[in-house]
């Protein structure tokens, strides 16, 4: 059963933080944090930017397009980094995926 929650991140994924994982700005320490069961993670600036775009609606491909445009950087390199980062979070159980919308 537990394995069913595990996701593989691709360009088509619509990632979102699960209900029990919260991205929050820590006013005291002036740093973004991810709050999870028994864990506090400190994502770097890029990760925060990516996670803010993970709303369960946008596909990874769209998120990467936005970042590539904003930073005028090669899309392929960004795609690789973003997928690696999101997959790492997913492996730890801190990222889930919105169900496929059949429009």
């Amino acid at each position, binding site marked *: *059963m*537990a*394995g069913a929650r*595990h996701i593989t991140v691709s360009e088509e994924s619509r990632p979102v933080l*699960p*209900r*029990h994982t*919260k991205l*929050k700005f*820590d*006013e*005291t*320490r002036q*740093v973004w*944090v*991810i*709050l999870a*069961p*028994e*864990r*506090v*993670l*400190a*994502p*770097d600036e890029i*990760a925060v930017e990516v996670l803010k775009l993970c709303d369960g609606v946008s596909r990874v491909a769209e998120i990467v397009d936005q970042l590539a445009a904003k930073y005028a950087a090669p899309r392929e390199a960004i795609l690789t980094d973003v997928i690696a980062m999101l997959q790492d979070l997913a*492996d730890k*159980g801190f990222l889930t995926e919105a169900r496929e919308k059949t429009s």
Partner: protein
Amino acid sequence: MSEALTDTPSTPAANDGLAVLESRKSTAETFGIPLAVLAELTHRCPLQCPYCSNPVELDRASGELTTEEWKKVLSELAEIGVLQIHFSGGEPTARKDLVELVKHASDVGLYTNLITSAVLLTREKLAALADAGLCHVQISFQGNEPVIADRVAGLKDSHRKKIEAAKWTRELDLPLTVNAVMHRQNLHQLPDIIQMAVDLDADRLEVANVQYYGWALKNRAALMPTLAQLEDTTRIVEEASERLKGVLTIDYVVPDYYALRPKKCMGGWGRQFFNISPTGKILPCHAAESITGLEFESVRSNHSIAWIWQNSDAFNRYRGTGWMKEPCKSCEFREIDFGGCRCQAFALTGDAANTDPACALSPMHEAIFKQAEIEAEGATNRFLYRNFAGGTLETGGDGA
């Protein structure tokens, strides 16, 4: 002693928040406010586990903080930078205001965790807690089947209720941690307990060997594992951790009597943790009241929580390394383990400033290791159950 029995130093991942945040805010001079705080809402509990981490002298219901007092505390914690709150006890669901407290904690931005025996939960109650913003549930298990589990808990039908509550937890889409407290009389169930955690769709399993203070120290002879059991345990945990990667995270706590190096208890006294007792005392660890001669300040005093954390004598007494005697004082590991556990040092040597005897460098280490071996091999299986009356001895022969 095999290498596997020593505490494996945890290497924090690059994005380990604690490491990152600590490096930013916590230094030896200014102690950053902890990221997480344990709120022991009550010492009341329907279970009577003989290794309970509550003090032997339990706080009475009449002395507990009121709902309004707890709410004020929660607001203050959020304000000073605490990020997570663990509602514990005793049994936190014995408090009628738990939903209200979880709601308030969520409203002020705290990440809420419930540490429970689960036997008082109903599906409705758990749903109400989830609606109030509860983020995570940790349920303690005493075994993988009712015979041993109910006997250890000292409560009939407790195991069945726990299983039921664990299922509700996942049905409500709350993440679940199974906490299994292990000792000589249930270690043989470990493989089944691991499978139970998988079957319950838990995210995490804590395999926590009993730590021997307070109630557990009174029950040491009935609980201490044998060295052979411990070697099996380590092997089983390592095998399962590898096999269940991505399915179940297993955290493993070894009994430090069999370790060569002491544990970095609480991450060091007053460095990254405090808890609040049912009556509102701010404590460096949940067993700290066992050390006589320390005065702990309360949230009911005129001082703020931040002031108590930074300035109170109890927190400063064993902070850093200045209080140390030999062999800690000149030890190269003094800032790695901070001399181990102060409560254990006090309980076993009579002086909390002594080296924790779990450390091989302590002059008492050999003696306690031998003692553990003797108790594990030959002693009674009979429990002294935890209660407000100072404990009740298990009836019925050896309890085996």
